[in-house]
C-alpha cells in the first residue's frame, strides 16, 4: 500500500497494483460543469419515493395517537420527488466533487491517503453494522473483542499503556486528553492553569485548551522550525499543566530535542500531550511513549484508513501512560481470564465523552486496515510517506521558497514569498491553479508562522508517477511568466467562489434564498 522506494518515477512502479510504466498519474479534473438545482426545486406536489413494510398494525389516526396539544396541523414541507429524480440529483452532485478515489490530495496535515476498499466491506458486515449499542455484553463479544484488540494494538503502536476509543474525532480526543490532564493534576491536589502550545500548532489545540479550562501559552519556533528550547524553559513553572506537541510538527520536521523537552516539562510536574495528526510519519519507526509523552490522540481518519467522508466521521482514540490509565473515559472493553470480554469503567474515570462507544464502524475499518498491514506493513507506510515527501521537496528546490529546506518527514512547507514579489503569485493562487491540473490544492496559509505557506503531503499511497506529475504541475505553475490568472480555476465546476459575499449575505438554507433572493 506504500510507494515502492526501489523505483524511480521514470521507471514506473513494477509491483502488483501499481500503474504500468508511463501509466496515467492520479490526477483528473472534476467534470460536472452544469449548475445543479437544489432538491427542493425538483419537488412537485404529490410525488414521493418512500414505501414501508406491511405490518398489520391497526391504522389509528394521528389524532387518536397524539394529544391535541402536541400534534402539528400540517406535515413539515420537505421534498416531493421521485426516487429516480433524487438519484439523478445526488449523482450529478457527485460529479461536482473531487475525492481521493479520483485523484491525489496533497493536503498537508490531513493525510489524504487512498483507503483500501477492503475496509469498507469489513465495516459493512451485518454482524457489526446491525448491532444495537445497548445490546448486553454477552451478546456482543465480537464487538468487544474487536475494540479490545484495536485498543491494545494502538497502545503497541504508540508505546502507551491504555486507550479509550470513544472520542469521535481528533478535536474530541484533544479535549478528552486535556480533561485527563486536569484529572491527573487534581488527583495530586494541584490546580494548574496553563498549557503550552507551539506557534505552529493546529487551531484545534488552543480551542481545546480553552474548553479544557486552561489558558494557552505560546512557545515560538526557532530558526530550525523546531520548538525553541530556551524559550520553552523560560515558560515552564509549577502552573504549567502540560504541553501539546505534534511530532513531526506541522512543518513536517521531527522535533529532535524531544527528549530534552520531555525532561524539562516533567521536571515542573507537567504532562506531554501528543497530537497524533502526523502519526503516519513515524509508524514502526519511533513511538510517542518512547519520546516521553503521557497522552496521545490518534486520528484514525488520517493514519488508519478511515475515509474522510467529506469532513467526517473520523475517530480520535486517546492512549495514555500507566499513571493516567485510571482516569480514562469508560466504559472500556476488558479481557477476562477465561477469554471473554466485559465493559469496565476505570475507578477515577473522567466520564463518558460519547453517547455510546465512539464511531464504532470507523474503528472496525481501522482494525481491518491494521490487520491487512501488520507491523511490517505499517512501517512501510511511514517509509513511503517520508520518501514521497522528501523526493517532492527536492523537485521544488529553486522553484518555490523552502523556508526549512532540511530532511522532512511525511510533509513539508513551501512558500510563494518570492513568486509573490516577482509576479504577484500567492499561495492561494497556486492552490487554485493546481485544481485546473486535476490535483487537489495543498493546505494553504498554514502553519501560520510561514508567509504564503503551501503545506504539501503526498502520502505513501501515491505512485512515483503521480508524485512526479504533481511536481511537474507545481513547477509549471511557478514558471509561467504571466503568473497565475486571477480567474483560476477556469476548468472546475464553478469558478473562484465569492466567500466574502457568503458571509455578508448569509444564505444558510434554501428558505433563506427563497426569502432574500439570490442577488
Amino acid at each position: 500500500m506504500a510507494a515502492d522506494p526501489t523505483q524511480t518515477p521514470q521507471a514506473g512502479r513494477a509491483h502488483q497494483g501499481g500503474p504500468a510504466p508511463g501509466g496515467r498519474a492520479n490526477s483528473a479534473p472534476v467534470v460536472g460543469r452544469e449548475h445543479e438545482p437544489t432538491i427542493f426545486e425538483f419537488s412537485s406536489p404529490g410525488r414521493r419515493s418512500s414505501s414501508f413494510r406491511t405490518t398489520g398494525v391497526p391504522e389509528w389516526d394521528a389524532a387518536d395517537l397524539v394529544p391535541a396539544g402536541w400534534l402539528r396541523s400540517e406535515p413539515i414541507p420537505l421534498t416531493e420527488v421521485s426516487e429516480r429524480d433524487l438519484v439523478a440529483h445526488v449523482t450529478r452532485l457527485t460529479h461536482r466533487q473531487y475525492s481521493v478515489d479520483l485523484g491525489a490530495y496533497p493536503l498537508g496535515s490531513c493525510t489524504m491517503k487512498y483507503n483500501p476498499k477492503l475496509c469498507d466491506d469489513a465495516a459493512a458486515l451485518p454482524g457489526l453494522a446491525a448491532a444495537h449499542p445497548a445490546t448486553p455484553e454477552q451478546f456482543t463479544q465480537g464487538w468487544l473483542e474487536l475494540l479490545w484488540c484495536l485498543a491494545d494494538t494502538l497502545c503497541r503502536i504508540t508505546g502507551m499503556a491504555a486507550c479509550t476509543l470513544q472520542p469521535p474525532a481528533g478535536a474530541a480526543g484533544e479535549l478528552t486528553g486535556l480533561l485527563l490532564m486536569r484529572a491527573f493534576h487534581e488527583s495530586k491536589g494541584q490546580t494548574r492553569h496553563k498549557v503550552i502550545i507551539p506557534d505552529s500548532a493546529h487551531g484545534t489545540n488552543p480551542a481545546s485548551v480553552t474548553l479544557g479550562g486552561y489558558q494557552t501559552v505560546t512557545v515560538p519556533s526557532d530558526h530550525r522550525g523546531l520548538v525553541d528550547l530556551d524559550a520553552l524553559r523560560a515558560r515552564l513553572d509549577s502552573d504549567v499543566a502540560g504541553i501539546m506537541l505534534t511530532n513531526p510538527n506541522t512543518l513536517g520536521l521531527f522535533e529532535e530535542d524531544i527528549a530534552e523537552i520531555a525532561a524539562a516539562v516533567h521536571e515542573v510536574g507537567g504532562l506531554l500531550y501528543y497530537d497524533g495528526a502526523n502519526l503516519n510519519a513515524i509508524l514502526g519507526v519511533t513511538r510517542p511513549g518512547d519520546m516521553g509523552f503521557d497522552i496521545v490522540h490518534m486520528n484514525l481518519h488520517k493514519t488508519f484508513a478511515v475515509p474522510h467522508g467529506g469532513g467526517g466521521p473520523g475517530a480520535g482514540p486517546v492512549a495514555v501512560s500507566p499513571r493516567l490509565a485510571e482516569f480514562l473515559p469508560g466504559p472500556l472493553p476488558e479481557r477476562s481470564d477465561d477469554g471473554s470480554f466485559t465493559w469496565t469503567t476505570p475507578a477515577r474515570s473522567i466520564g463518558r465523552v460519547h453517547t455510546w462507544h465512539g464511531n464504532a464502524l470507523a474503528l472496525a475499518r481501522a482494525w481491518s486496515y491494521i490487520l491487512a498491514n501488520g507491523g511490517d506493513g505499517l512501517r512501510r507506510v511511514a517509509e513511503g510517506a517520508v520518501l514521497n515527501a522528501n523526493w517532492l521537496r527536492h523537485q521544488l528546490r529553486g522553484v518555490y521558497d523552502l523556508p526549512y529546506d532540511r530532511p522532512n518527514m511525511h510533509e513539508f512547507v513551501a512558500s510563494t514569498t518570492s513568486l509573490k514579489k516577482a509576479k504577484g503569485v500567492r499561495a492561494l493562487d497556486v492552490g487554485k491553479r493546481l485544481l485546473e491540473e486535476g490535483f487537489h490544492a495543498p493546505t494553504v496559509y498554514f502553519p501560520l508562522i510561514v508567509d504564503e505557506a503551501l503545506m504539501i503531503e503526498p502520502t505513501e499511497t501515491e505512485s512515483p508517477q503521480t508524485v512526479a506529475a504533481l511536481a511537474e504541475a507545481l513547477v509549471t505553475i511557478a514558471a509561467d511568466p504571466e503568473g497565475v490568472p486571477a480567474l483560476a480555476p477556469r476548468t472546475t465546476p464553478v469558478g473562484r467562489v465569492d466567500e466574502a459575499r457568503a458571509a455578508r449575505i448569509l444564505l444558510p438554507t434554501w428558505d433563506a434564498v427563497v426569502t432574500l433572493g439570490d442577488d
Partner: protein
Amino acid sequence: MLADIGLSSLDQLFDVVPEALRLAAGLDLAPGLSEPDVLAEMERLASLNRTGTDLVCFAGAGAYDHEVPSATKRLTFRSEFVTAYTPYQPEVAQGVLQALFEYQTLVARLAGLPVANASLYDGASAAVEAVNLATTAKGRQTVWVSGGIHPHWRAVLATFAHGTGHDLVDVPLRDGVTDWSAAPAGDPPAALLVGSPNYLGALEDIGAARAAADRHGALLLVGFDPVCAGLLRAPGEDGADVVVGEGQPFGTPLSFGGPYLGLFSCRMEQVRRLPGRLVGRTVDSEGRPAYVTTLRAREQDIRREKASSNVCTNQTLIAVAAMIQLSWLGTAGLRELALRCARGTRYAREALLAIPGVSLVADAPTLREFALRLPVPAGTVVARMADEGFLAGVPVGVEGGIVRDGGDDLLVAVTERRTRDEIDAYASALEKVVR
C-alpha cells in the same frame, strides 16, 4: 527515488530521529494478512454478535432500528462522498457543499428554526455545544438540565463541564415529565435543557419550559427526536432557542452506536456563536450559484483559543445520508414514518400492559417509546428474552426524579419495521419470562 535525494537506504530517511528513540525491533504486531484472510477474521468477529438479523429489536434509547432504503445506501457510499476531504476548496467540492446546504435546510425545517449547522458528532455532543452557546450568550455558568434527558447525554455534559466550569443542575421529573418548579434556588440559569420526547418516551410541555426559561431570562435548549417531528409541533415553533438531536434514524444503521449524527439548529441571533461548520450559498466569479463554508471566523483554525467550539472534523457523510434519506421520505413519508412508529408503539403498549404485573413507569403521553415496570428486573428480562429471539429493550431507572442507565425498569421502542406478528410474539414471550 532514494538516489534522487542522495540516500542509499530507507533507514536513512529517519536519521533525524535520535537513535535512542528509534524502534530497533519494529512494532510488536503480527505480520500483515491477505485481503481474504482479513475478511475472514472480520467475519469471525461479526459472527460473535447477536444483532437485528437474529434478535428482533425493541431497543431504542436514542438508537433506532429504522429501514435504510437501497437509494440511501447506494448513494451515500459513492466514492465522491466517502473519500472527499472537508470542502476547503469549494471549486472542486460543490457536491458535498450543496448536499450539506440541502441537509441544513431540511434540519432547520424539522427544528422549526432558521439555521442549522453542517453536523456535530452525536446527540450528546450537540447538547454540549448548545450548553456552551447558551453560557457564552448569557454570560452565566448555570444550566438547568431536565431529569428526563438521556443519561448518556447527562454523563457527557458532566464530563465536559469539568473543563468549562459550568454548573449543571438536575431538575427532577414528576409523573414522567420535568417539574421546572422543583429547580433548586441558586444562580439564575443561562439555559434550560429538556428532551422531548424525554428518555422515558414521554412528551414534554415545551410551552411550559419556555415560560420557565422566560421567568429566569434563560435560553431554552430542546433535544428532539427528528422522527417524532413528523407528527409533533416543531420545538422552534414552541419557543426553543436551540434545537439539538440524534440524527441516526435517517439513513444510518444501528452501527453499535456510531458514527451517528448530531443535529444542531438555532435562531439567527445566535448564528455567530454556532459551533462547527456552516455552508452558505453565494456566487462564483461568473455569477453562478455556488456554495462555500461561511462565517468561518467562528472556527478553531481561525479564531484559535477564542473559537466558538473546537470542532473540526464532523460527521459530513452521515449528514449526506440524512439529506438523502429525508428527501426519499419526503413530506408525506416523514409523517407516515412517525405515524407508523406511533401506531406500533400504541399496539405494543396495550399488548404488554395486558400482562399481569406489568405497568407503566409514568402515565404521560408517549409516541415511539415507553418505560415499563416489571415483576422481574429488566436486566434479567433482557437476557431471557434473547433466548426467545428478542432484544427486549434497554434497562432504565428513575431515582429522585432523575433517569439513569441500567435500572430495573425496561425502555421499549417500536419502529415502523415491527410487524403485528412480531409484537404479538414479543408479548407472549414477555408474559412467559416475567411469570
